[in-house]
């Protein structure tokens, strides 16, 4: 995101085991996110006015993530696992600045490119070319900056021949390839991916994997939420297991996914205590 660059600050909290990165890519300190909602969904202004006059407005609260502290070094690849509704997507959202934490502090270094649900803002009537520029604008890039990137993006997505046709004629795979290529070509420092690494065919997937490796080698960070434990073990070094809004395990990807897998199979109703 193109925001005013703030002064760099030394990290206050350090991970206990890993060598301390003085400038972690992502740092969360005691972050909680609560969603407030009306007990009876009141969506109309009329109803709201009537009920507030009658003093019959009731609010409920849903805690999506609770007191999460986390340090992610630059160049790290982190996978996130956990049951539905555990708070995985909310965690990505606070990092992406889409949700502001209700409590705690989030710090992110560099440009963040979220890749949550592919094809964000793609418009069917517009051509591939026009969509690339629009997609770039969502990430804060000007038309001129994007024009220079188009040949490279098209080449990586293998869509050179289809740039001038409307995106509505693309297959799902083609659209995903285009979105992935744009998100990774804008050179983000942090790439957030929600359930979407299964892009295109096997050959394209291996190209994606290569690009991810190259990313990390350059000190870029990526964060992957997925239900596919295989994908996480393949592409991440570290994994977080999230349950009921808390991190219950944090460690090497293989260990964490194994523990999660075992727990899932055991059918245990209780969530393991945070270690």
């Amino acid at each position, binding site marked *: *995101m*193109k*925001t*005013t*660059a*703030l*002064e*760099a*600050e030394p990290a206050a909290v350090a991970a206990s085991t890993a060598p301390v990165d*003085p*400038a972690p890519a992502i740092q969360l300190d005691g972050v909680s996110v609560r*969603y*407030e*909602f009306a007990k009876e969904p009141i*969506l*109309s*202004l*009329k109803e*709201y006015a009537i009920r507030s006059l009658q003093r019959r407005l009731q609010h409920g609260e849903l805690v999506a993530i609770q007191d999460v502290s986390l340090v992610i070094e*630059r*160049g790290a690849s982190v996978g996130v696992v956990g049951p539905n509704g555990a708070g995985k997507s909310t965690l990505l*959202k*606070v990092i*992406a*600045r*889409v*949700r*502001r*934490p209700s409590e*705690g*502090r*989030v*710090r*992110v*270094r*560099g*440009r*963040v490119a*979220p890749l*949550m*649900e592919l094809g*964000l*803002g793609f*418009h069917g*009537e*517009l051509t591939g070319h*026009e969509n690339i*520029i*629009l997609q770039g*604008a*969502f*990430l*804060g*890039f*000007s*038309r001129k900056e994007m024009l220079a990137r188009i040949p490279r993006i098209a080449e990586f997505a293998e869509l050179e021949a289809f740039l001038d046709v409307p995106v509505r004629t693309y297959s799902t795979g083609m659209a995903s390839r285009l979105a992935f290529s744009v998100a990774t070509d804008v050179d983000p*420092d942090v790439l957030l991916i929600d359930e979407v690494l299964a892009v295109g065919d096997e050959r394209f997937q291996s190209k994606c994997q290569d690009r991810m490796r190259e990313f990390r*080698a*350059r*000190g870029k960070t990526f964060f992957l939420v997925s239900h596919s434990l295989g994908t996480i073990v393949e592409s991440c070094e570290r994994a977080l297991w999230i349950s009921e809004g808390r991190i219950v395990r944090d460690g090497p990807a293989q260990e964490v996914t194994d523990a999660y897998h075992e727990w899932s199979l055991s059918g245990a109703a209780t969530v393991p205590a945070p270690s």
Partner: protein
Amino acid sequence: MSAVLPAPPVTYDSAKRGLPFVSEALALWDFRHLVAELVSRDIKVRYKRSVLGIAWTMLSPLVNMVALTIVFSEILKQQITNFPVYLLTGSLLWTFFSQGTSYAASLTVDAGDITRRVYVPRSVFVAVAVGVALVNLLLSLVPLFVIILVTRHPVSTAWLFLPVPILVATIFTAGVGLLVFTMSSRFVDVKETYMVLLGTWFFITPVFYVPAIVPERFRWIITLNPMTHLLNLFRAPLYEGRIPGARVLLLSVAAALVALAAGWLFYARKNEDYGTRS
């Protein structure tokens, strides 16, 4: 790790947060390219699949004007000098205002869709709505000039003053647009309610009549209506062929600034709460 780049600075810190109405304005500026792209996307998509294309924007006010001219000058025998130009200047500015604000109200769905996935300040969508309406206004100035020439309305150097009324009207529209957009992000019925309100508002705005025909005891309604002054400001150069007087200028600039300040403060205060409820 040979080619590790130096650590980028902290770009987002949730704890560092200035006054919302300042930080939201800076955020909107950061996303000016997105506003431009979304406006151009909107215009392109609107005309891509239509036969008449961009000509439609210019034709539709003409068709409207002809119909209304017949109704008001022939049937109702209203006596206004060069009624077509009077009517068209009024209806172009009214259309700009009503289109910009109601479009802002309807963009909340798109805004929700996008801001759930990527950080984009929501005010971008109000800017887009006003931007699209502004492009349409500028395009429809072409048929207006055609009518001015055809009806032998005097051409005046006062036309050079035209950017001022357009700018003032844009500020006013943005202010009201922000209010409606923010309310509409929270409550689903705001858009319909606002459309009803617009219908009434149109009739208390001297688009197709002169304030003089309104009975004395109701005239204060017309005077209190900020759109009256904006219309006067717009008509002064185009219809009357003169630079507007200080009173009209002052009243309309004041209305525009009050609307923008109110809209922006309300938006900055409520946007985050309203925008993340769904």
